[in-house]
C-alpha cells in the first residue's frame, strides 16, 4: 500500500482535470490574442474562467483575478507589488510568524529595500495575537499579510477579526492572505472576510502545477514583478497558460461540489487519526490546535526521543509519505520555525511529523499509517540513547 500524506506540499491531478488540460494542449491550443476565431474562443474561455474564480470567492468581477504561475508568484506580486507601488504612502508591513517560506523571504527582501517588517507572534496553538497586531499598526502601515491557515501546524487564522482591526484604522491598509491551503477546501468570501488580496495555487487541490491566481480587489495598486508585451493581462505578461487555467478551473469546480461533505468527512477522520495515535503511541504531542480551530486537512505530531528525518524515511520505506519539521531534513539545518513559533523547542521540531490529507483520504489509509507509525516509532526509540523518564 502507498499512502501519500504530504498533500500540503502537492496533490495528485484528477483524471477529469488532466482531460481538460489535454484538450487545451492538443485541440484548443490558441492564445487569446490572435485575430482569428480559435483565439477569440480562448479569450472568452479565459474571461469565463476569471468570472468563475471571482464568483467562487464572492469577488465583484473577473478583472480582480490575475493568473500566475502559482502561489509563490502570487505572494510575490501581492507583497512586492503592493509595497513598491505604495511606497509613498508608507513603508511598514505586518506579517505573521506562521507565513509560508515565500512570504517570509519576500518580507526579508522588502526589508532590504527599506521597508520595516513586523512579525506578529502566534499563541501555543498557532493562532495570531490580534492585540499585538493591532498595537503594531502605525500611520506608515500599508500592508498586512496573514496566512489563511497557519503553516505546518494547521491553525485557522481569524481573518475576519484581522480585517475588522484594519478597517477601524484611520488610513487604508491592504489585507493580503496566502490562501494556498484554504482555497477550494473551505468556503471563502472576500467581502465578508474583508480580504483585499489573496494567493491561490492549483496544485494544492488536485489541479495542475505551475498555475495559480492572485485575487486583487479593484483599486489596489500593484507594481508588476515581470514585464512584457501587450497581452491578455497587463499585470502578468507572458504566454497565457490556458491549459493550466482551465485545468485549475475544473479542479476547483470538482472541489466546490464536494466541499461540505469533504470537510465533514475529514473532520471525523482527523479525530479518529488523532485519537488512535494518542492512545496507541506514548510520548506524542499534537502540534497546533484541536477541533474547529484546526483545518481537518492537517495533523502534526511530535514524537519524543526520535528524529523526523529518520521517521519519515522509515515510513516512506513502508509506503507512507509525510513531511517533517526536523532540522536534519532542512537544507539549512534549521528546525522548523512554525514549531518554534508555537513555543516548541528544538527537540519538538526535531521529532515533528506532518500528515496532510486530501479529500479522498480514507480510513483504511489512516489505519495503515497508524500501524506503520507504531512500528517505526518503537523501532527508532529502540535505537535512541534517550529513553523516557
Amino acid at each position, binding site marked *: 500500500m502507498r499512502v501519500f500524506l504530504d498533500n500540503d506540499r502537492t496533490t495528485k491531478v484528477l483524471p477529469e482535470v488532466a482531460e481538460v488540460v489535454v484538450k487545451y494542449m492538443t485541440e484548443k491550443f490558441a492564445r487569446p490574442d490572435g485575430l482569428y476565431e480559435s483565439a477569440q474562443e480562448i479569450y472568452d474561455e479565459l474571461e469565463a474562467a476569471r468570472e468563475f474564480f471571482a464568483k467562487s470567492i464572492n469577488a465583484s468581477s473577473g478583472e480582480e483575478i490575475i493568473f500566475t504561475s502559482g502561489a509563490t508568484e502570487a505572494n510575490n506580486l501581492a507583497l512586492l507589488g503592493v509595497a513598491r507601488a505604495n511606497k509613498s504612502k508608507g513603508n511598514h508591513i505586518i506579517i505573521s510568524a506562521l507565513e509560508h517560506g515565500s512570504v517570509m523571504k519576500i518580507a526579508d527582501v522588502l526589508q532590504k529595500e527599506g521597508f520595516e517588517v513586523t512579525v506578529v507572534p502566534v499563541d501555543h496553538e498557532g493562532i495570531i495575537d490580534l492585540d499585538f497586531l493591532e498595537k503594531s499598526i502605525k500611520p506608515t502601515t500599508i500592508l498586512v499579510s496573514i496566512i489563511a491557515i497557519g503553516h505546518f501546524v494547521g491553525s485557522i487564522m481569524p481573518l475576519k477579526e484581522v480585517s475588522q482591526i484594519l478597517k477601524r484604522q484611520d488610513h487604508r491598509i491592504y489585507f493580503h492572505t496566502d490562501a494556498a491551503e484554504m482555497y477550494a477546501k473551505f468556503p471563502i468570501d472576500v467581502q465578508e472576510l474583508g480580504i483585499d488580496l489573496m494567493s491561490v495555487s492549483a496544485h494544492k487541490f488536485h489541479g495542475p502545477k505551475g498555475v495559480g491566481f492572485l485575487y486583487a480587489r479593484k483599486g489596489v495598486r500593484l507594481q508588476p514583478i515581470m514585464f512584457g508585451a501587450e497581452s491578455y493581462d497587463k499585470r502578468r505578461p507572458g504566454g497565457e497558460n490556458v491549459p493550466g487555467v482551465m485545468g485549475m478551473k475544473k479542479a476547483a469546480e470538482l472541489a466546490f461540489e464536494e466541499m461540505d461533505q469533504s470537510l465533514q468527512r475529514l473532520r471525523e477522520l482527523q479525530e479518529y487519526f488523532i485519537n488512535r495515535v494518542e492512545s496507541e503511541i506514548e510520548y506524542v504531542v499534537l502540534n497546533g490546535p484541536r477541533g474547529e480551530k484546526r483545518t481537518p486537512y492537517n495533523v502534526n505530531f511530535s514524537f519524543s526521543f526520535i528524529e523526523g528525518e529518520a521517521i519519515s*524515511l522509515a515510513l516512506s520505506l513502508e509506503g507512507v509519505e509525510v513531511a517533517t519539521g526536523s532540522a536534519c531534513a532542512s537544507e539549512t539545518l534549521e528546525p522548523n520555525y512554525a514549531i518554534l513559533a508555537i513555543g516548541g523547542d528544538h527537540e519538538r521540531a526535531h521529532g515533528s511529523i506532518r500528515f496532510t490529507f486530501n479529500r479522498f483520504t480514507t480510513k483504511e489509509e489512516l489505519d495503515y499509517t497508524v500501524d506503520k507509525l507504531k512500528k517505526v516509532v518503537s523501532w527508532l526509540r529502540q535505537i535512541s540513547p534517550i529513553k523516557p523518564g
Partner: protein
Amino acid sequence: MLKYTELVLDHFKNPRNMGRMEDADVTATEGSIACGDMMTVYLKIENDRIVDIKFESYGCAANIATASMMTEVVKGMTIEEAKKITWKDIVERLGGLPQIKYHCSNLAVDTLKKAIEEYEKSLARK
C-alpha cells in the same frame, strides 16, 4: 534533496551492533546541540582490541547508518587502528553521503574517539 546510497539505506534499515551494552568497559555520548543529534557508543575491550561495540543514535538516517558502519569497521580492530579511523573512511565505506550529512559521520567517529579516550583515561587512573 537527500539521496542515500543503497548501502546507507541498508545500514539504516538493519543497523549493525545496535543497542545498549550492559557490561561495557566504556561508554561515551556525544551530541551537538546545533543539530540536535546525539550518539552513544559502548565498547568492550580486551588486550587493546575492540572485541565488541554497540551504539545508540538519536538523529537522522545518516546518523544511524554511519554509526552502524563505524561499529562494523572498528569491531575487531586494535585501539591504535581504531584511532586512525576518520569520518571520510566511513563515508567512503558507505559509498558516499550527501554533503550536508557529513557532520553525522563526524559524530560517529567523534563518539568512538571519545570512548577510546575515556578508556585510556580510565587505564591511566588504574
